[in-house]
């Protein structure tokens, strides 16, 4: 509860964005509440007139007309209330979705590795949607649940003090009781929300890994797991709903009790002629209306709990630390040389890079080799500004500190092919144009040619318009790799960072692609991470990464001649005849 109290004011602050709609909503609710009261008066007058004053209906025409006018007014108000209720939340929803997404991008891919994409999507869709009732129902209802009952009390007291007292006592029980139940409901709602995120995350994981599951003959077992998860979700949700339903049942019981009490007291007095029909009937018409806003509050209190559970997750995403991005914008460089000095980095556990010094000369190919898990990809992430070194400095062309650069400007100058390139759902052309939507068909073909992808693209019936599935479904491993390369070439960057660029390629294609890289490198700086010596052999410089530092640096030939780790690596290849 303590935490909820911190979330409420924050939600209210978000709500300021649509203050106008909120106030309109409250205003419409108030007018509509008063119209209900006036309507009850008219109806009581009519029925009393006919039944007890024995007037012909025609004599009551003014009351009938007023009643009809009130009905029309209420219809208009109901329509207006729905629309403003929607408007109250629309701006907030848009704004939150945009801000969360921007914040995710600002944090970058390294923290994103700790998030589950389906969980984020569920937070942005179902979670943000879950805030709507908070703004459109709960907040306006809070104002109504004071104003309308008070107006009714003001009318009832002069008519009948006993009934007024009964209502006065029963009314405040509602909020008191709700707070009491609220403690439990909140924890349940939080659990339910967590379960929903887990459910989404699990199902996306299963859908993406369905082929792997089938390969292991485990896909059918997921049916039982899906049943268990859904059942689990049902149980938690029902636990929350049971509390909510019980709350409203108890409230309704109180309300019924109060109304029955009012009715019975009237009945007793009516029999003995201590009171007339009109006030009794009017109060009885008003008594249920007295409880309507209060009952609404209990319904929407549940909406508040749901909203708070979702908001907690939304705010956690919004509050996540974002490294100071740097703001220096370099002019577009044609030559980029990089230097790392004493660079250290860890993901929170052991040091991955530990005081690393390295030099990536402009216009040259530098190969990084090292055991799996040595930190090659991590070093690339630092150069890409996906993460900042915890110690040490990375400088560009000897002067500019990478940490101070605006990331977008830096990314505009480079291209990167990651270890597991991600192709997006769309056509091959869409994927190639990712970085340059305006690229011409001729440029597309040239980039594909450089990446040795043109032949197979043109061999497909649809060519560049061939659809690519999620994660490159429909393409072979090496084809995915070459499309990713072509995408990088198309960008024509000053710095090219290739992480295992020739993975999944046969030696002949690899040699072709290395030729292309050498061709490109006449104008550019290239950093290639590689396990294959064929790649290192073509590089101007080889860096051997070991224990978080550069253990050796030099040309392929020079390092082979030495006695360091590179030679050991080469021997590992040398023991078996290989196609190099």
């Amino acid at each position, binding site marked *: 509860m303590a935490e909820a109290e911190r979330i409420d004011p924050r939600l209210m602050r978000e709500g300021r964005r649509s203050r106008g709609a909120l106030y309109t909503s409250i205003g419409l609710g108030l007018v509509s509440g008063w119209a209900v009261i006036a309507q009850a008066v008219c*109806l009581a007058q009519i*029925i009393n007139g006919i*039944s007890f004053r024995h*007037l012909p209906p025609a004599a009551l025409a003014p009351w*009938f007309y007023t009643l009809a006018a009130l*009905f029309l007014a209420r*219809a208009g108000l*109901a*329509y207006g209330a*729905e*629309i403003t209720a929607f408007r109250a939340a*629309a701006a907030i929803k*848009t704004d939150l979705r945009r801000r969360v997404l921007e914040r*995710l991008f600002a944090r*970058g891919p390294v923290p994103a590795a700790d998030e*589950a*994409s*389906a969980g*984020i*999507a569920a937070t942005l869709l179902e979670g943000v949607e879950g805030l709507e009732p908070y703004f459109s129902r709960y907040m306006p209802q809070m104002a109504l649940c004071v104003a309308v009952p008070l107006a009714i009390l003001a009318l009832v007291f002069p008519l009948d003090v006993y009934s007024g007292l009964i209502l006065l006592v029963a009314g405040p029980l509602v909020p008191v009781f709700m707070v009491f139940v609220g403690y439990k409901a909140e924890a349940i709602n939080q659990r339910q929300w967590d379960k929903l995120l887990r459910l*989404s995350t699990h199902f*996306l*994981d299963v859908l*993406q890994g*369905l*082929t*792997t599951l*089938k390969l*292991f003959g485990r*896909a*059918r077992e997921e*049916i039982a797991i899906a049943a268990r998860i*859904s059942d689990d*979700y*049902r149980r938690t*949700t*029902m636990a929350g709903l049971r509390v909510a339903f019980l709350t*409203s049942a108890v409230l*309704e019981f109180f309300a*019924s*009790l109060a109304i029955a009490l009012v009715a019975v007291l009237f009945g007793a007095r009516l029999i*003995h002629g201590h009171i*007339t*029909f009109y006030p009794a009937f009017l109060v009885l018409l008003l008594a249920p209306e007295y409880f309507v806003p209060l009952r609404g509050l209990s319904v929407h209190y549940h909406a508040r709990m749901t909203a708070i559970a979702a908001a907690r997750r939304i705010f956690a995403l919004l509050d996540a630390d974002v490294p100071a991005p740097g703001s220096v914008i370099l002019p577009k460089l044609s030559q980029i040389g990089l230097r790392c000095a004493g660079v250290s980095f860890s*993901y929170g*556990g052991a040091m991955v890079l530990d005081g690393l010094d390295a030099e990536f000369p402009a216009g040259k190919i530098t190969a990084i080799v090292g055991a*799996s898990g040595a930190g090659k990809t991590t070093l690339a992430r630092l150069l890409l500004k*996906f993460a900042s070194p915890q110690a040490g400095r990375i400088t560009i062309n000897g002067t500019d500190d990478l940490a101070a650069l605006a990331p977008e400007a830096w990314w505009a100058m480079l291209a990167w092919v990651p270890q597991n390139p*991600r192709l997006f759902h769309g056509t091959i052309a869409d994927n190639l144009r990712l970085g340059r939507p305006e690229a011409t068909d001729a440029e597309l073909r040239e980039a594909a040619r450089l990446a040795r992808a043109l032949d197979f693209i043109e061999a497909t*019936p649809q060519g560049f318009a061939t659809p690519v599935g*999620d994660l490159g479904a*429909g393409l*072979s491993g090496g084809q995915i790799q070459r499309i990713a390369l072509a995408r990088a070439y198309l960008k024509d960057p000053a710095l090219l960072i290739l*992480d*295992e660029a020739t993975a*999944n390629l*046969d030696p002949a294609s690899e040699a072709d692609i290395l030729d292309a890289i050498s061709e490109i490198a006449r104008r550019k700086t290239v950093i290639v991470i590689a*396990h294959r010596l064929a790649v290192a052999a073509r590089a101007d410089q080889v860096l051997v990464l070991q224990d978080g530092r550069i253990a050796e640096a030099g040309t392929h030939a020079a390092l082979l001649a030495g006695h360091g780790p590179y030679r050991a690596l080469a021997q*590992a290849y040398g023991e*078996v005849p290989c196609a190099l």
Partner: protein
Amino acid sequence: MRALIRLAGLFRPFRGWMLGGLALSSLTILANFWLMTLSGWFLAAAAITGLAGYAAQNAFNFFSPAAGVRFFATLRVGSRYAERLVTHEATFRLLARLRVWFYATLEPLAPAALQGFRSSDLLSRLVADIDTLNLFYLRVYVPVLSAIIATLIMTGFFALFSVQAALILLAGLVVTGALTPYLTGRAGRAAGRDVVRETAALRGEYVDAVLGMGELLTYGAAPALLARAARGNTRLLAAQAHLAKISGAGMAASGLTTNFALLAVTLAAGGKVAAGHLGTADLPLLALGTAAAFEAVAPLPAAFQYLGQILEAAQRIFAIADLPPAVPPLASPAPVLEHFALVLDDVSLRYAPGMAQALRGISLTIPEGGRTGITGPTGAGKSTLINLLLRFHEYQTGHASFGGHDLRTYDSAAMARYVTIISQRSHLFHTTIRDNLLLADGAATEAQMWQALEVAQLAGFVRAQPRGLDTMVGETGARLSGGQARRVALARAVLRPTPWLILDEPTEGLDATTEQDFLRDLAPLLEGRTVLCITHRAAPLALMQQVYALNEGRLVA
């Protein structure tokens, strides 16, 4: 409409729950109706008695109507509580059933028939669309049927007093309960469909944003994605705004009909009271009864605007369910095998009509216990051999047999029993290393897991992690290095002692030293098994007894 009938078919096992919810819902409406009619009559009758003097006061039975009011008040509270519990319980049971049913329909379709779908779109179907389908019971089925039941009983009750009042009530209920919902349903159809579609599209953008963030940022494509997401959000909100308008209009219309019906009943009954055809106390009875009767139909206009969403969701769900599987389901159980030789005779495979053949007239025999290597340039059709053998894709011509039986007598579940595969892109699940290993063999002991990790050269790394086997690997293995993720996949395969082992580029992403150590430790485990190894690298090929080369779908050596 056909979709709704199919939906009802899926709900059949929960008939008991569904009918229970319906009965309780009708009971709640009727309890409220009689509570209000009785209260109105009671007050008026008491007032008449009060005016009539002592004799009447003593004759007036005060207690049975008072008890009736209490009874109906309690009944209403109790049955509404029970109704909500039962209908929601039913809803969530239906939800679980639908979800499991949908997954079970989806599973045989993967991977071939689902290739054109984004996994985030499938997720939207599995989670959001199924949720929407479920609204059918709570928002359409229960309110509609209980409204019909209650309408019949309530108008019948009114007819006891005044046929005219009963007819007015019936007309009002039909307008609110049938005409208005029909109109709101029609007006909301397109917007409801848009809500479902835009939600799925947005989910795709959000999932891409997280999983493809590195590429999106470095290619400067993040602003474009943000803009697309913003436009999608705008379209979603526009559709929702449209629905809000319809729901407002529906509410206004149903309120208006309710109130004018009330007015008309009062006028009609008032005339009869004035003419002496109806008792004085019957007027408040009919007036309050009319107001209460409309509670039965009040939710219907709003309910029917969901129909568009429900129909679209149903269509999206059944569109998947109706996809033909790439490989027809087995007519009879797959044969149980003792021998495991694979013989391909002039086999050709084409992924889709109109595409080039990925395998062209392959004839090859892989003897039981043999170790066979496959090489060939990228795109040659090497991985396609796996799709063929695992029955993921159907071959069109030629004859294939496994263990002496036609390959077509197996499905992928049957093949997976005999074959373990390390595929080129193995999926790591967003859980611990332990659970990823258990996937291969649910009964594996801790010792077996460590042994598998030793062979995969990953034991040292796992041991160095503070949480050991319980280290989380991240979504698709994002918290591991590329080679580490590959080695988890290798360890997974090592754990599974099937007669066949297929390795597709097993050591891609590993450095030469690790590769060598892995192959050295793997070699003893290959004894007596049939091994098929697809690779571009020389080291694994050295372990093979025969090596075939593929090029453009043909066997060249």
